[in-house]
C-alpha cells in the first residue's frame, strides 16, 4: 500500500523537477546571449522622465533628448556648444537695432510627409508655443511678432533680450512642426489654445517634424522607439533605429551596458562607474553645464532666526566646497562660483568661494547669534547628475555645525517638495541643467527681482519681500533686455557678482558628465541641447 503512493509521489516530484530543469536549460540553450545589436540600431538605457511628447507642452530632461531627435529647429549649435549653425534656416540677418531677425529657409527642407517646410509652419509653431503657456514657453516670451508673408522667409521681431533669441531658438521645444498635419489633428495656435487645443494625445503617438527620425512607438514606463524618416532632406544618419529603454537605476544601467544589452547608458554616476569591469565599456569624464545648488529662503515662515544678509553670508562662508566635491563626486567635478556656468557669457573670471570659518563666526556674532541657531532643511531625497542630495546635506550639516548652526534634515520626495512650496522650507537643494547656450535663463530664474521664479520662492511664495529685492540686479535686467551680445556679456558678469554676494543661491558643485558607452559606438559627444546627438553616431 505504502509503496504505491510512495511511488506516486516520487513520480510526481521527479516529473516536476525534470520539467523545471528542462525549462531552465532549454532557455539557456536557446537564449540569445546578449549579442551586439545590429549595426544600425542603437539601444540606450535611461531613466525616462517624459511628461509629454507634445513639443510645446513637454518639459523634462528626457524630453529634450527625444524631441530634439524628432523635430528640427531653425538653427542649431555646433559641436563646440557655442557656434550657431544653420539647420532649417540656411542663413539669417539681424537688423541694425538687433531686434529683428530674418531667417531664410532652406528650400530643400521637407517634413516627414514630404511637404516643404515653410514660414507658415514656423509662425504656427512659435505662436502655439507661446499661447499654450506651458513650461517651456518662457523661452518664446520675448518674441513679439512673426511675419510669414513670404513662404521662404521668416521675420521674427523680439521685444526684449535680443542677444538670447538665437540660443533660445535652438532649444528642442522650438522644433518646427508641420502646421497642416498638426491642425488636422486638433492643434490650435491662437490665443485660446489652452482651452481649444486637443492635439497633445495625438502627439503622444505621432511626430510631425523634419528631422532624420520619427516616432515609432512610445510605451510609458517602458521604452520609446524612433525610426528613420525615409524622406529626410539632409544626410542620412548611420543609425536607423533608436530604442530608449526605461531603466530607473544606475546599477541596472551599468549591468545592461556591461552585458551588451544596451549600447549607451545615460545616467551612470561616478560610484557605479567604478564597478564597471568590462573592457568593452568606455567611460569618458568631461565638464558639464549643470550644477546643484543650496538655496536659502528668507521668506520662509518657520525660521528660527531671520536669514539676514549677514547670516546668509556666514552660512555661505562655512561651506567647504572642495570637501563637498570630494565627498559627493570623488573629485570628478568643479567648484562653480556663481549660477552662471564658467563657459557661459559672464560666467568666467569670477572669485572662487573659499571656506572661512573665522569670518563666518564673526558675522554670526555681529548678527546677534554668537551661539548659532537651528535651521530646518527640506530637500528632495534624490540623486541628481550622480550626486546624492542626502550626502550633500549631511556634509552641509557637518560644515554648519562648526559655526554653531544645527541643521535638521527633512528629506522628502520631489512631488512632496513641490507641494510644500508654501513658504515652509527654510533651506533646500536643487539642480539646474542649461537648456540652451545663453545666460538669460539664469537671470530670469534666479534674480532677486519681482517676477522671477526664485524671487517668488525665496520670498516664501508671497512675491513681495522688500528686503529681498535687489535693485542693482533689477537695473541690470533692464539693461540686458535691450543689450547686444557684447554688452550683455559684461552685464551678465556684473549680475553674477551680485548673485554671489547675495548668498541666497549657493552653487555647490558642477559635476562632470560621464559618457558611458560600448567601445564600438563612434561619434559620442555631449550636446547641451539634446545631450547626445544620436544622428551623429555610428557603430562599428
Amino acid at each position, binding site marked *: 500500500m505504502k509503496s504505491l503512493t510512495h511511488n506516486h509521489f516520487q513520480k510526481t516530484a521527479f516529473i516536476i523537477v525534470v520539467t523545471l530543469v528542462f*525549462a*531552465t536549460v532549454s532557455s539557456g540553450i536557446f537564449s540569445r546571449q546578449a549579442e551586439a545589436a545590429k549595426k544600425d540600431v542603437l539601444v540606450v538605457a535611461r531613466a525616462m522622465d517624459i511628461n509629454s511628447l507634445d513639443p510645446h507642452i513637454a518639459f523634462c530632461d528626457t524630453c529634450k533628448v527625444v524631441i530634439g531627435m524628432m523635430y528640427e529647429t531653425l538653427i542649431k549649435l555646433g559641436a563646440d556648444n557655442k557656434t550657431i549653425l544653420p539647420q532649417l534656416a540656411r542663413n539669417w540677418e539681424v537688423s541694425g537695432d538687433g531686434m529683428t531677425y530674418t531667417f531664410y529657409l532652406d528650400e530643400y527642407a521637407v517634413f516627414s510627409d514630404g511637404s516643404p517646410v515653410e514660414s507658415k509652419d514656423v509662425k504656427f509653431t512659435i505662436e502655439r508655443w507661446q499661447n499654450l*503657456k506651458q513650461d517651456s514657453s518662457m523661452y518664446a516670451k520675448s518674441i513679439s511678432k512673426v511675419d510669414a508673408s513670404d513662404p521662404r522667409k521668416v521675420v521674427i521681431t523680439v521685444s526684449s533680450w535680443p542677444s538670447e533669441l538665437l540660443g533660445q531658438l535652438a532649444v528642442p521645444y522650438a522644433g518646427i512642426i508641420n502646421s497642416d498635419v498638426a491642425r488636422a489633428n486638433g492643434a490650435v495656435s491662437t490665443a485660446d489654445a489652452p482651452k481649444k487645443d486637443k492635439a497633445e494625445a495625438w502627439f503622444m503617438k505621432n511626430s510631425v517634424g523634419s528631422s532624420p527620425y520619427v516616432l515609432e512607438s512610445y*510605451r510609458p514606463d517602458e521604452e520609446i522607439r524612433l525610426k528613420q524618416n525615409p524622406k529626410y532632406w539632409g544626410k542620412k544618419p548611420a543609425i536607423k533605429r533608436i*530604442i530608449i529603454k526605461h531603466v530607473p537605476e544606475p546599477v541596472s544601467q551599468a549591468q545592461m551596458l556591461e552585458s551588451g544589452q544596451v549600447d549607451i547608458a545615460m545616467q551612470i554616476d561616478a560610484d557605479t562607474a567604478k564597478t564597471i569591469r568590462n573592457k568593452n565599456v568606455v567611460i569618458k569624464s568631461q565638464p558639464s553645464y549643470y550644477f546643484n545648488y543650496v538655496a536659502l529662503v528668507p521668506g520662509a515662515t518657520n525660521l528660527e532666526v531671520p536669514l539676514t544678509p549677514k547670516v546668509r553670508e556666514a552660512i555661505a562662508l562655512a561651506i567647504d566646497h572642495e570637501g563637498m566635491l570630494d565627498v559627493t563626486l570623488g573629485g570628478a567635478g568643479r567648484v562653480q562660483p556663481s549660477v552662471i556656468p564658467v563657459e557661459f557669457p559672464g560666467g568666467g573670471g569670477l572669485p572662487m568661494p573659499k571656506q572661512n570659518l573665522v569670518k563666518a563666526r564673526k558675522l554670526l556674532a555681529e548678527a546677534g547669534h554668537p551661539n548659532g541657531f537651528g535651521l530646518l532643511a527640506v530637500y528632495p531625497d534624490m540623486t541628481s547628475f550622480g550626486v546624492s542630495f542626502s550626502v550633500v546635506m549631511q556634509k552641509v550639516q557637518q560644515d554648519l555645525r562648526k559655526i554653531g548652526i544645527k541643521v535638521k534634515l527633512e528629506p522628502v520626495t520631489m512631488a*512632496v517638495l*513641490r507641494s*510644500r512650496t508654501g513658504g515652509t522650507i527654510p533651506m533646500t537643494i536643487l539642480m539646474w541643467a542649461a537648456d540652451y547656450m545663453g545666460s538669460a535663463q539664469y537671470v530670469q530664474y534666479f534674480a532677486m527681482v519681482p517676477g522671477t521664479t526664485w524671487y517668488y*520662492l525665496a520670498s516664501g511664495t508671497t512675491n513681495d519681500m522688500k528686503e529681498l529685492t535687489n535693485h542693482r540686479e533689477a537695473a541690470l535686467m533692464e539693461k540686458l533686455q535691450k543689450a547686444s551680445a557684447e554688452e550683455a556679456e559684461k552685464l551678465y558678469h556684473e549680475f553674477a557678482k551680485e548673485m554671489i554676494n547675495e548668498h541666497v543661491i549657493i552653487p555647490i558643485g558642477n559635476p562632470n558628465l560621464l559618457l558611458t558607452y560600448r567601445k564600438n559606438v563612434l561619434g559620442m559627444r555631449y550636446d547641451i541641447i539634446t545631450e547626445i546627438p544620436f544622428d551623429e553616431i555610428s557603430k562599428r
Partner: protein
Amino acid sequence: MLRYIIRRLLAIPLLVFGVVTICFFLAHNIKGDPLSSLLSFRQLGNPEIVAATKARWGLDKSLPEQYFIYIKNLLAGDFGTSFRTRRPVLEDIADRLPATLELAIVSLVIGSLAGIFLGMLAAYYRNQLIDDGARLFALIGSSMPVFWSGLILLFIFSVKLQILPGPGRLDPVTDIPPYVTGMFTIDSLLAGDIDKFLDAVRHMILPAFVMAWSMMGIISRIVRASMLDVLNQEYILTARSKGARELRVIMNHALRNVMIPTLTIIGFSFAYLITGAVLVETIFSWPGVGYYAVSSTRALDFPAIIGVTIIGATAFLVTNLVTDISYAFANPKIRLGR
C-alpha cells in the same frame, strides 16, 4: 440561493460608488496642491501659466462641481487624464493590464500546483521530516517580504550566476510580438516566434516564482488540513479495507474533497496577487498595473491612483463574489449571507 446572488450583484455597484466617493475625497483632501504634480518649479510662481494649467485640467472649479463632473465622466467610461503620462487613465491601465494578467495567471498556476503538491506531500508524510520541510518551505515563502525575495533571487540568478535575465519582460532589443492579447508569451506563440516566446518565458521565471512562493503558504496549509480530514474519514477506511487501489482511493475521494476548499482559497488569493503585483512588478520593472500604481503614488498623480483603485476594487468585489458563490455551491451546508 438565487436571491443571495442577486442581492450580492446589486450590492456591487453601490459598493463601487462608495469606493469612488471615498477615493475622490481622499484625493482632494491632501495637503498639497495638485498643480505641483503638473508644473515644474519654474512655473509655479507664474500666475499666467498656473491659470492656464488650471483651466486645462478643470481644477478651477469648485470641489462639488469637480465631483459631479468626475462621476459623470466615470459613467461614460472616462477615468480622467493622468498627470504624469498625459494620457487617459483608462488607456494607461488597459495598456498595462495584459502584463499583469500574464504574470498573475502564471504565478497563480505555479503557486496553486506547488501549494497543492506541498500540501499533499505534507499530509501524506504527516509528522515526518518531509512534512516539516514542506510546511517550512511554504511558510518561509509567505513570511518573506515579496520585494525582498525578488531582489535576492534577482541578484543571485541574474547578476552573480547570470543564468536568468534581468528586470523587464523581454530583452531590450527585441521587438514586442504583434498585438493579439498583449501577453507576450501567447502573442509570440501565435506569431510562430519560438525565440521570442522563450525570451518572454525566461523573463517570467523569477517574478512568477516569487509571487507563487508567497501564495504557497496558505494554499498548502488548507490542502494539508483538508487532506488530513479526508484521510481520516470512515469511508476512506472502508474503501481501503475493501482493497480498492490506493491510487484510485486518493484521486477519487481525497482530491475531490480537497479541491473545493482549495478553489476557494485560490479565490481568496486574489488579494495576494494584487499585493504581489504591486511589489513584484516594481522590483522587476514589469510594466503592469502594479508598477503603474506605485509610480503614480510616488508622483502624487491622483487621477491615476483613483483609477487604479476603483478598477482594483471592482475586480476584487467580483472575484470575491464568484469565490463565495462557488464555495456556497460546493458546500450547501454553509449558511449564506448573514
